[in-house]
């Protein structure tokens, strides 16, 4: 194998090689694993995105055809983009607001607080799993608890997963409900704000809302940024709830056809592996751009104490 390396400086290389051999040996499981299971598949998927591949025949090179088709001909694709953006832009802020609200409730010195923290975190431990999605289906199904409540209140029941306007709402509600992990991070952030700040503000006569907007939010803003980015990325990739709730079809009227679900349908139901790979790459770029935008705009609203507020 070494003959293929460019010649010269061989002795030097050998020496440092020997010195570092142990190190390389120790990291080799990771490096090999990374190459075989992550890096090479990434390259292959990039290659496949320029091909027509149905798993049976050899991939055929079609250039940018998949991307052209995606952007100019495929209405369903744009629909899935639209649905995903609604899901992300409605779901993530709601989730973070809810998480912050609960975190502030749990940031008190009550005796039962440990218990409550565990309970509120539970949905996230089981979060995203198939079981939760099935439970959610049952809560909102025809004779589920939500409809029973509506009937009790004299309101006609809603076919939550049958109504094109309501189905995505239930998915967003599910994502809001799984607020636990962001909540824990907020809680840690809240603990880091020194009580003296609030005391000083109280002495100056600040009201509770004023304290929240002038002390809590600015000091928490780096953590909000972190949560925002992490949650946005994961929201873009949401798959399981939409798959379970719509039986893998994105019904009704493609109202729950999230991007990843449409990608999955193209790949594993229609065997359009090349097209699905192209979709995956566009998704990667999309998420990258979103993250970049969040980072850029963060300069305007994130407050770092260590930099004296800049």
């Amino acid at each position: 194998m070494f003959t293929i390396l460019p010649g010269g400086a061989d002795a030097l290389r050998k020496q440092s090689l020997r010195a570092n051999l142990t190190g390389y040996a120790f990291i080799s499981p990771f490096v090999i694993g990374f190459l075989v299971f992550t890096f090479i598949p990434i390259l292959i998927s990039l290659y496949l995105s320029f091909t027509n591949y149905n798993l049976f025949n050899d991939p055929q090179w079609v250039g940018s055809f998949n991307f052209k088709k995606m952007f100019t001909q495929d209405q369903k694709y744009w629909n899935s983009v639209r649905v995903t953006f609604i899901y992300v832009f409605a779901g993530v802020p709601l989730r973070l607001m809810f998480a912050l609200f609960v975190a502030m409730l749990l940031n008190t010195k009550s005796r039962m607080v440990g218990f409550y923290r565990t309970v509120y975190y539970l949905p996230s431990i089981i979060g995203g799993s198939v079981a939760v999605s099935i439970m959610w289906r049952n809560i909102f199904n025809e004779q589920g608890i939500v409809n029973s409540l509506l009937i009790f209140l004299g309101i006609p029941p809603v076919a939550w997963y049958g109504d094109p306007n309501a189905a995505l709402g239930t998915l967003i509600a599910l994502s809001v409900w799984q607020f636990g992990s962001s909540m824990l991070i907020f809680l840690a952030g809240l603990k880091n704000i020194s009580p003296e700040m609030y005391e000083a503000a109280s002495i100056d006569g600040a009201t509770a809302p004023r304290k929240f907007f002038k002390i809590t939010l600015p000091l928490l803003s780096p953590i909000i940024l972190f949560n925002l980015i992490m949650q946005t990325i994961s929201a873009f990739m949401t798959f399981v709830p939409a798959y379970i709730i719509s039986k893998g079809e994105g019904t009704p009227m493609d109202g729950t056809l999230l991007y990843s679900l449409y990608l999955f349908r193209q790949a594993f139901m229609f065997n359009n592996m090349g097209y699905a790979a192209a979709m995956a790459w566009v998704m990667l770029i999309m998420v990258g751009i979103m993250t970049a935008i969040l980072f850029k705009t963060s300069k305007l609203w994130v407050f770092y104490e260590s930099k004296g507020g800049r």
Partner: protein
Amino acid sequence: MFVRKKTALWMLVALLFILPACSGGGSTGGASNGGGDDKPAQESKGKKDTTTLRIAWWGGDKRHEYTQQIVDKYQELNPNVKIDVEYAAFDDYWKKLAPQAAANQLPDIVQMDISYIVQYAKNGQLEDLTPYIGNQIKIDDVNDNVISTGKINDVQYGVPTGVNVLGFQYDPELLNKAGVDSIPENWTWDQYEEIAMKVRDAGYVMDGSMAPDIFFHYFLRTHGYSLYNKEGTALGYEDDALFTEFFGRLARLIKEGAVPSQEKLTQTKGILEESEIVKGMGVGVWQWSNQYVGLQAAVNRPMELAPMMGPDMEKGLYMQPSMFWSITSHSKNKEEAAKFIDFWINDVEANKMIKGERGVPISASIKEAIVSELSEPEKQVFDFVAAMEEKSSPMSPAPPVGSPQVIASLADLVEQINYGQMTPEKAAAAFRQEANGILANNK
């Protein structure tokens, strides 16, 4: 963060090591895999002269259970054969099979579905069974119409495990409550609509609508057409008025309240317990005969089966193979595999365990032999299928490559009609365009 030069070199070396092994999964990977398969077979042959067969199927728990029992029984009777089993639920099964096919690692025997068999056959994954038919696989007691369902372009790629037929599965008592004594013999689509309206007036619903692809296909056949053309390169009908008539009627029944709203249908789709008939609010269901036993158990009231409506039911009706057994082309033990398929079709004891769970058995003598073992609903199904077998015509060619996408597109459009978002006329034109676009790839 940046990778150091030396590390980069090492990574390059590792890459060079790994790349040839991974890339070209089709050619090099396939060859080495084949070699891997050879070894254990040869070793064991040298020792005990046993052959190992791999078999894969999809299904639910009940099917896994009895299939394993049959496999055990076969191994007991044939100590020289060892059978490895692989099974999964329907969706997962195809996700598993496709990569195995891509890597030339398919099991010796695979359970095939009508909607996938063309794809696997066309891509050279399945063996032509003609040389085995009549030799290892005996089909003396099998109707020609039935065995030929496993043929694609006159090549036998699969042996059907059993047959199903379409029909109306209903609760006669509820129908009586609506003032309808019985389903008229040779009923027509108009009579169906009349009855449905009476049922609605009595405060019930007629059914849970019809699966678009299956029943539209039936409707086209009664008019002498088919959903796909023979070559599978385009739709098999020219006149969009047929589309408009069929889906217009279904949408009308929904609008009139004789069938639950599309909201409700979408919500309850695929959940037997939530369907109207199980709740005692609906008269019946349109579906395949093999689904009757499960439905009857959930409904838990006396039920009956009624034939499809006409005119020209005989032209439209066909025996649908519930599924096939196929032998894959790279199998090393094709003869042994064929023998196992024969056991499946012609062994009485085995079929007493199957009891028509994979469709009504294709062999006439087996059907007779196991009748005494059947429960009342199972007997109803056997009788219904036997009665319909005489009235059916040969099946249309199996759905072409790309049909799952065509069916998905049809289902989407029908949904839009039923939600009132699109007229049947517009949907007919849109379906033609989309479907022909997908099927054009088969040219």
